[in-house]
């Protein structure tokens, strides 16, 4: 039987939804599940890890791990792997996960697969599906010559189960020492948005050149507020300087996989589609019935966005607050 190590990320004192997804998947596989969580709140987070399926939790109670540093975290993973001896590591294909685990894999001379959208975990047999060629093909992939198989899952791809409030796990402490760091995080400049990041968001409202000018993004912000959504954008409006480039969806922006993506005044260029075709339901609002976005959409509205969007905001408010 295999041993699955789940690397747990947290925010605001709670484990992230993506970690809940990974713990649930590990538990369902019927293998032994160990969670690893670091930072000054590690001890509190351990309880939550147990509730989602960890039988054992390694905590690194050290405020150094409140902030990601590739060197420090590579050292933590290296020690954790030596101690826990997992056959599989599951982590999120987040900013942190994508940066850290390829380095860890190289360090351990083992394989890693990033940005996976499907996971098949049966004993030592691990296969995944992941988009390649900007989502124009799906690759089924596996490992070879790998002592531990590292899988990075895109958030929002796996189901979670209700936490088992009575579950507990054995907690073990891991102390990680590393000096002579060549990497120093000098500062973290907060983003303007308090909302979930595009890559984690469940609902996204995205705007394009059809909005005519930067100030009109107000319409989208109102729509997003009614839905609890995160606002995204096409490259055209990012390059025009209307919104910041962290909001860009597409090939040279972010790849997103929400359950609902609403594209407003976006034509649907292939590079934009590359970033959002993984959305479960796509709504397109465009005044050109021939816009390519309609070929990818689930639902389409041909109309003037300045007329449609405010009405839609009101309709959502009614539907969601009654």
């Amino acid at each position, binding site marked *: 039987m295999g041993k699955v190590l789940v690397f747990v990320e947290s925010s605001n004192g709670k484990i992230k939804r993506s970690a809940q997804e990974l713990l649930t998947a590990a538990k369902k596989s019927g293998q032994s599940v160990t969670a690893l969580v670091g930072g000054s709140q590690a001890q509190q987070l351990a309880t939550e890890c147990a509730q989602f399926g960890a039988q054992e939790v390694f905590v690194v109670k050290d405020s150094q791990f409140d902030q990601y540093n*590739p060197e420090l975290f590579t050292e933590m993973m290296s020690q954790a792997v030596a101690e826990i001896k997992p056959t599989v590591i599951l982590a999120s294909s*987040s*900013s*942190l996960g*994508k*940066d850290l685990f*390829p*380095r860890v*894999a*190289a360090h351990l001379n*083992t*394989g*890693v697969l*990033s*940005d996976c959208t499907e996971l098949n975990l049966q004993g030592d047999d691990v*296969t995944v599906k992941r*988009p*390649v*060629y900007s989502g*124009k*093909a*799906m690759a*089924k*992939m*596996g*490992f*070879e010559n*790998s002592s531990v198989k590292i899988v990075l899952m895109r958030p929002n791809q796996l189901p979670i189960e209700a936490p088992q409030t009575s579950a507990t796990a054995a907690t073990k402490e891991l102390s990680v020492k590393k000096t002579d760091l*060549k*990497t*120093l*995080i*000098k*500062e*973290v*400049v*907060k983003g303007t*948005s308090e909302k979930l*990041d595009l890559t984690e968001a469940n609902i996204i409202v995205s705007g394009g050149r059809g909005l005519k000018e930067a100030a009109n993004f107000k319409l989208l912000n109102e729509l997003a507020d009614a839905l609890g959504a995160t606002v995204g954008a096409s490259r055209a409006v990012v390059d025009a300087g209307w919104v*910041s*480039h962290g909001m860009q969806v597409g*090939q*040279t*922006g972010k790849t997103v996989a929400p359950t609902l993506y609403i594209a407003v005044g976006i034509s649907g260029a292939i590079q934009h589609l*590359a970033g959002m*075709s993984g959305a*479960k*339901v796509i*709504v397109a609002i465009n005044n050109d019935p021939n816009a390519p976005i*309609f070929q990818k959409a*689930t*639902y*389409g*509205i*041909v*109309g003037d966005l300045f007329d449609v969007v405010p*009405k839609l905001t009101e*309709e959502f408010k009614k*539907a*969601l607050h009654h």
Partner: protein
Amino acid sequence: MKFFVCIKQVPDTETKIKIGSDTQSIDTTGIKWVMNPYDEYAVEESVKLRDSNPGSQVWVLSVGPKKRTVETLRTALAMGADEAIAVDAPENLDPYQTAKALAAVIQQEGGAKVIFTGKLAIDDNASCVSQMTAEFLKVPHTTVVSKFSLSAENILVERDVEGGAKEVVQMLAPAVVAANKGLNMPRYASLPGIMKAKKKVIKELDFAGLNTGASAKTKVLSLELPPEKPPVKMLQGDSSAQVSALVKALRDEAKVL
């Protein structure tokens, strides 16, 4: 002072992808190849850095089938790179093998002050090679970089993370810096640049000859086209009717609200 840039040639973003008869790779007939878009930012940054550090040099490096990599290396030379190395290798190396080859060549050529890469190759979608190369070279790395500066021994970068936040990271050089969009505006190759690039000699190496001993750690079992979307449902009537039909459909049919 030497700067290395690792560049990959990938199918043009507009290319239609067809699965090959082996079902494990794509059918490359008729594909237009271009420099990986993120690698353009890497080349641009290195050329700017070279220009502000007289006496320094930009070396570009690509691993892959020679007939293709030399094309993209010429593009980089035309953008202003000084020297180019093509490592002839089979099509299907995995990121681990690629990084082993890149690290071996960089080491063999005497190392570099900064190694620039792209944050992601848009064909394999791995975002692995930069960090792996850094690990094999035993140097620090930062990925998703949208701001860069170099002062004596230190590299100062900004890394884009979730929620529009930025991490300001200082690394002791040498280090690997993986470029994101926003780092700069890549220049177009000028005509004199293209003419000059044509005359340059590209140094050729062979993957097997590097003796990295690296075997692949991951493999493609099969490729498939993404599932076809059912046809779009267009909502009819005036805008009020369209909007209420949409909300109803999202709630009762798609069940996403």
